């Protein structure tokens, strides 16, 4: 990806930045890195790549549906494409893009050197990538999954989906799931355990808070889908009878397990975005976030309540009326904490002096567009009404408004906002604004009409529709809109390339381009490999901002220090850093072999298993080759501890 090359170029520039003697910026360094920043960038690049893949699948969907009786794909291919679109977007684009932000920013926002388990972090990334590759290999190895991202049994059983596609689905998602679980444990420990002195929980930026809640949701939600996927895998590969109605298998078991995971999952997707805009909005409004504790607690409340609403995806599935009523009510009330957030963002902007730069535009886009999706969500929560809406395009409209309007806009806000932090140069704000407006128009053209289509009765997951139901016009509009979205993505890509070219050979942008508030801006741009020269001591929320500004006697804000004075220069040397390691990628590369072996030929699992076992073994006994090890002033116990630690996550070497 273009982004990578840019990174290298920029990072390469000698900024007086400390570079590790052994580390370069060649490909070898990327595949062995355990640095949370590089891993964050890797996540970002992979996620954006898969976003384009999923987007192209979306465009195919839209082409097929542009006119009645579409013939672009055909029924079989259509089913594979929409399934892979959902899976790719959710698991390979949205989640890892959030992970990119989490990895890059959490340690910086809490004043830490790295995450708690850097090698595990690398493993999480490579395993995610392995899972993504497994999923997409299905295209050329017998057919992609064709049972929908929700994979309802028994349609996904071997009788009804005889191609290996659903095996790829089950195993690919299992691998990405394990990756997410590892990463969530890692980040949870990081946030709890590695905060800089003075960084109490209630001095953490809202972004870090929302990420913490997200990681906790992941910790508890991933095992549930893991079980669901195991049941599916064992049914398909070993003939288990979980979903075979002829012997009493229950079709609803899968649905419960999937949605017990699935609903927390949608909050896993949205909370990072909420976190991002909670950083962007105060910065550009030049005001502190309004109601910080309420922001935090509403995020926690959303995470909590998200566990008690899953059956709203099953209102017509035949669960009893009492369940329907209970889940209907619990679902509605999630609107309350979410509303608290929306209104607090508005109150943050209210009375501000708002600069509508690109990040801010995207953030305001979230506030308004997500609200549309949230409100249609409330109309689904009314269970009797949902019996009319479910599985129609009205639902598709709902979730693309929350997902695209809430997540994609939020992530773009984050990309524009933190781009200088990561790469040391700004993205063009002018192009960014164009990007935003084209995206906003395209997005509304694409998904707005779907409300109408759904209420007119157009079903989801149909590869074609007949003329005469009144679907023609709006489908065409929607298809046109989707190409506008594609255009906006292309504008973004152009912006990335052009900005990188412009920045080539130039000094990096200043340390504090947005007059920002949180700790990550204390480090120079781009962030030096060791993060902070000195671990900051935190005295307040918005620590960085408070180092720049004070109040005069009238209570007015006055600048007390320039950004240059406050920011570190990244000149520290001899900082102890976790050395790179080969084993995460070796470990992860075994996983696709195991998956393919289970699907096609058990012998393949042997090399896969060997790779994994070898990696675990080597991981434990990995020699300490850190040039700075002697410098480390914590008790250096690697050498002897190595033998002691078994398959447990060993202390990071």
């Amino acid at each position, binding site marked *: 990806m273009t982004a990578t090359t840019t990174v290298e170029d920029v990072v390469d520039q000698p900024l007086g930045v400390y570079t590790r003697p052994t580390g370069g910026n060649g490909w070898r360094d990327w595949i062995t890195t355990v640095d949370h920043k590089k891993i964050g960038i890797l996540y970002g690049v992979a996620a954006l790549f898969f976003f384009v893949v999923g987007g192209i699948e979306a465009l195919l969907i839209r082409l097929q549906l542009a006119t009645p009786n579409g013939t672009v794909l055909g029924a079989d291919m259509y089913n594979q494409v929409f399934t892979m679109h959902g899976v790719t977007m959710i698991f390979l684009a949205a989640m890892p893009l959030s992970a990119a932000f989490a990895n890059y920013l959490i340690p910086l926002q809490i004043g830490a*050197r790295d995450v*708690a388990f850097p090698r595990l972090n690398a493993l999480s990334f490579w395993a995610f990538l392995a899972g993504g590759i497994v999923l997409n290999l299905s295209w050329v190895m017998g057919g992609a999954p064709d049972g929908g991202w929700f994979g309802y049994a028994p349609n996904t059983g071997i009788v009804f989906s005889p191609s290996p596609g659903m095996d790829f689905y089950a195993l690919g998602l299992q691998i990405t799931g394990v990756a997410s679980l590892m990463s969530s444990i890692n980040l949870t420990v990081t946030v709890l355990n590695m905060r800089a002195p003075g960084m109490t929980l209630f001095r953490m930026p809202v972004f870090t808070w929302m990420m913490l809640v997200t990681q906790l949701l992941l910790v508890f939600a991933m095992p549930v889908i893991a*079980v669901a996927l195991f*049941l599916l895998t064992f049914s398909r590969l070993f003939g288990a009878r979980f979903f075979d109605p002829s012997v*009493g*298998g229950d079709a609803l078991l899968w649905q419960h397990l999937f949605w017990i995971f699935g609903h927390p999952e949608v909050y896993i997707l949205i909370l990072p975005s909420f976190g991002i805009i909670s950083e962007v909005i105060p910065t550009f409004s030049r005001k502190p976030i309004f109601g910080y504790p309420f922001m935090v607690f509403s995020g926690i409340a959303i995470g909590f309540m998200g566990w008690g609403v899953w059956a709203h995806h099953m209102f017509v599935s035949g669960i009893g009326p009492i369940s329907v009523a209970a889940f209907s009510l619990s679902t509605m009330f999630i609107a309350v904490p979410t509303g608290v957030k929306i209104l607090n963002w508005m109150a943050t902007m209210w009375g501000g002096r708002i600069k509508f730069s690109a990040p801010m535009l995207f953030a305001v886009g979230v506030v308004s567009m997500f609200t549309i999706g949230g409100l249609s969500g409330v109309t689904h929560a009314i269970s009797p009404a949902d019996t009319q809406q479910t599985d129609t395009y009205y639902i598709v409209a709902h979730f693309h408004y929350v997902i695209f309007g809430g997540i994609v806009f939020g992530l773009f806000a984050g990309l524009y906002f933190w781009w200088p932090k990561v790469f040391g140069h700004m993205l063009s704000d002018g192009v960014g604004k164009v990007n935003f407006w084209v995206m906003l128009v395209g997005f509304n053209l694409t998904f707005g009409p779907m409300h109408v289509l759904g209420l007119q009765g157009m079903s989801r997951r149909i590869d074609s529709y007949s003329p005469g139901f009144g679907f023609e016009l709006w489908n065409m509009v929607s298809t046109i809109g989707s190409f506008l979205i594609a255009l906006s993505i292309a504008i973004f890509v152009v912006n990335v390339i052009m900005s990188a070219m412009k920045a080539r050979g130039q000094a990096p942008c200043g340390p504090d381009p947005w007059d920002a508030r949180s700790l990550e801006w204390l480090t120079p741009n781009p962030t030096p490999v060791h993060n902070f020269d000195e671990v900051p001591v935190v005295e307040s929320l918005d620590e960085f901002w408070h180092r720049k500004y004070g109040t005069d006697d009238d209570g007015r804000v006055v600048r007390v220090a320039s950004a240059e004075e406050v920011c570190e220069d990244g000149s520290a040397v001899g900082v102890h850093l*976790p050395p790179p390691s080969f084993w995460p990628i070796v470990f992860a590369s075994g996983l696709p072999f195991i998956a393919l072996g289970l699907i096609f030929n058990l012998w393949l699992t042997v090399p896969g298993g060997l790779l994994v076992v070898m990696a675990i073994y080597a991981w434990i006994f990995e020699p300490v080759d850190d040039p700075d090890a002697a410098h480390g002033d914590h008790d250096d116990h690697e050498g002897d501890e*190595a033998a002691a630690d078994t398959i447990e996550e060993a202390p990071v070497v």
Partner: protein
Amino acid sequence: MSDTATSDHATTTGMTHNKLAMWVFLGSECLLFGALISTYLVYRGRFASGPAPGDIFDIPFTSVSSFVLLMSSLTMVLALSAIKRGDLRNNRLWLLTTALLGSLFIGGQVYEFTTFFREGLGYTTSPFSSAFFTLTGFHGVHVSLGIIMLMSMFISSLRGSLRKEHSETVEIIGLYWHFVDIVWIFIFTVIYLVPSPTS
């Protein structure tokens, strides 16, 4: 600067990363076993034309092997207590005993599975059989991983690289081991002792 990613002494909470991570992981495992147990409970009455749980469970036998596993928790905690005192010899002894008790349990499970299989309960016989073998199989895999870890510690200890200052490693693996034990406490009661449907 001491604040490295690995420094055990500089954590915010005062807990080491490893121990905290293990507890978070165990919290996560609750959801995993919960899903498996629920699956079993939904399906325990759906034995199609195969044997029903009430027909084949051998409570006295399972009681013995449950007791074995329970006692392995005692030996585990004794191993920890020993290494904390610096008593490496007893540490090794108890580690080995724990692993042996665990293996005994696994042996019992293998025996149970083969007996059930001979009585007509295959993995694909019915939703009940699939759920039963999956649940107990997952538990068995957890125990087996635990045994591997215990044995690795035992070998490290023999080689002299598991010493008093590493007691936390023993403690963390002990946490895992106890967790697997309490899962079985649950399984033993809910799946075996609570009367099951018969055909």
